[in-house]
């Protein structure tokens, strides 16, 4: 029971963090068709900007302003780089954003050094929210979860229930038609890209204070975020949410499990033989928990190539 409750709590919160980062990525892909390799770099940028601002002013200023700064960077990238290569197709956009990711990483190293910086949450937030089974549950983890949930709600309402959402969706579905109806399509795209970047920036500002803020954070989270988006279905916000939670829960539960192939043989009385073989037989699930998201991606791609909630199933 204790294992189930704690693993669920941990898994859900980690899943929500993954969702925060992947939401912007899936938004940008869904609305603009751009697979943005530099997305995790916006996450890193958010953390570093928030770190800088929290040193100059305070944590909350960093949290609020960092997404705006990152949105600004995102808008510049869209306006002066992506728009130029858009006509040449996806491969060019992909290569451009891939290059940007490398450049962002080196720029961060240039300005902030190779080592993790000391970005901390304020003392006021550093307390235990509640105690489950003798373990304190840090409030900040709940804070990360709440920010993610609010973000999802706002995004969903914005896209599904407002006039802005209608224009954005129209621009994605039939850009020529929307343009001839008098909507400024390039401006819409620029806005979407900016909002997507801002979401990543916000995630960075929130999570950077909990996880280390270092020049590798984009690399570390970047891969897993792509897995989330692929599993959930490229472009589907709801799919991202479901996939994030799944990956969070699977990772969390797998860590507590000492299952191995040899354990299976125990059931039929061949356990001792299987244990003596070692190698693959005695490898426990917990030791490969980092691989589980990729296994999930493999299965989803085989069964539903467009992802769990992708449009093209």
């Amino acid at each position, binding site marked *: 029971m204790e294992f189930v409750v704690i693993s669920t709590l941990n898994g859900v919160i980690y899943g929500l963090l993954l969702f925060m980062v992947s939401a912007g990525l899936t938004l940008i892909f869904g609305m603009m068709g751009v697979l943005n390799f530099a997305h995790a770099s916006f996450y890193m940028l958010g953390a570093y900007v928030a770190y800088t601002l929290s040193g100059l002013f305070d944590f909350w200023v960093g949290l609020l302003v960092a997404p705006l700064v990152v949105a600004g960077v995102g808008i510049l990238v869209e306006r002066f780089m992506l728009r130029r290569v858009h006509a040449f197709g996806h491969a060019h956009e992909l290569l451009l954003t891939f290059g940007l990711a490398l450049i962002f990483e080196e720029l961060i190293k240039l300005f902030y050094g190779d080592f993790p910086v000391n970005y901390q949450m304020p003392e006021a937030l550093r307390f235990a929210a509640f105690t489950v089974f003798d373990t304190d549950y840090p409030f900040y983890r709940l804070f990360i979860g709440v920010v993610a949930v609010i973000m999802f709600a706002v995004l969903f309402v914005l896209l599904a229930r407002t006039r802005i959402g209608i224009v954005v969706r129209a621009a994605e579905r039939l850009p020529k038609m929307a343009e001839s109806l008098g909507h400024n399509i390039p401006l819409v795209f620029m806005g979407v890209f900016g909002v997507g970047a801002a979401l990543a920036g916000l995630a960075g500002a929130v999570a950077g204070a909990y996880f*280390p803020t270092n020049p590798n954070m984009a690399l570390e989270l970047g891969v897993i975020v792509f897995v989330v988006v692929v599993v959930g279905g490229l472009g589907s916000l709801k799919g991202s949410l479901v996939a994030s939670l799944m990956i969070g829960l699977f990772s969390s539960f797998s860590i507590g499990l000492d299952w191995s192939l040899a354990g299976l043989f125990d059931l039929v009385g061949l356990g001792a033989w299987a244990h003596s073989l070692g190698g693959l037989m005695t490898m426990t699930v917990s030791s490969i928990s980092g691989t589980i998201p990729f296994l999930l991606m493999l299965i989803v791609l085989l069964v539903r190539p467009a992802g769990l909630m992708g449009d093209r199933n």
Partner: protein
Amino acid sequence: MRTLAAFALSTAAIAWATPTMAEPLRIGIIESLSGSQTSTGRLYAAAVQYGVDLINANGGFNGEPIEVIEYDNAGGSTGAADKFRQAVADGVHIVFQGASSAVAGQITEDVRRHNIRNPGSEVMFINVGAEAMSLTGEQCHFYHFRYATTAPMRVNALVNAMAAAGELGTRVFSINQNYSWGQDMQAAIEAAAAAGGYEVVEAVLHDVNTIQDFAPFVARINAADPDTVITGNWSNDLLLLMKAASEAGLDVRFGTTFLDQPGNIANAGDTALGHYLANNYVPAAGDPAFAEAYAAAVGHVPVFVEPPTIFAVGALGLALADVDFAGGEIDVTEIAKALEGVTYESPVGPISVRAEDHQTIRPVVVSRVARGTQYPVDDTDLGFEPVSVVAGPDAIYPVQASCEMERPD
């Protein structure tokens, strides 16, 4: 054809006219100078350069200053194999590397093969940080020297010091990364149980630096109810583990091996207070002259992988003083033989090479994170306070049976 002949003649004439230059000793650093492990790779490179500068200030070697060439292995063994070939083409005599056991495994194998195929122009590999046991076990060979500790050395020292301080307890949780280093650590922790008077309540291996959320692991630690957690984790894996543990209100002592990596203490903050570290050197241990001299030259006291690297270059300097090629061709085998006999006096004790497997017999320093120490780290008020210095002969473990070293004649 005539111009070609004329060209050949003229170059021959130039070669004839130039006075014969002494062959400079070339040191190649094959490190992660880009990618995710840049920070550590840079420290190795800086420390080698510092050590070589000291030798060059005393006249260099073979009548020439020693040349240092940096090669970026981009963090992987493929890149390292590529750069090793380039280093050989550039005439490098001695390769330095430390940041990864996987890369070291590649380099040591490349060096071994190169030396078999090219008798008379051997290359030597000084390993300053790759701690996998196999490097001095089944992979050992005459031209590989390890100037670093290994898992059993660190764990034995750590366990003894923590037990002596009454902080070890009887229940130890082992959590390590699932590759050669982590597996070595786990084996060492289990092997030291009887001597340390503890029981390994659980041993966990996990993926290397891909896990973002350590809360589930902390839940597992909590369920096992240990007194001490011993871990060989480094970089993010260590930081995230310690942070998650402190946030969950877990009351355990950590015994670590890489807590001194720059940025760790700043990030962990007061969470790190009271945790233990077993490594090669902390500035507060031994003669402060070494740390002060480094600080004067580089701007900060030597940390993390810098001290063992400087010790290794220092030992090499002593070996070079024992050989003399009179400005002629450099024979790496002679240097390797000389290095075997060298005892380098580090600020915390002598370091010498064990001839059987070329593992160094070296002191291990156990320290504890405390407030208000002499050398605070990471711009915090925390630093490492030495608890004990375990002398080389007490820290060393028996030669592994798997090492069959063939010595040159």
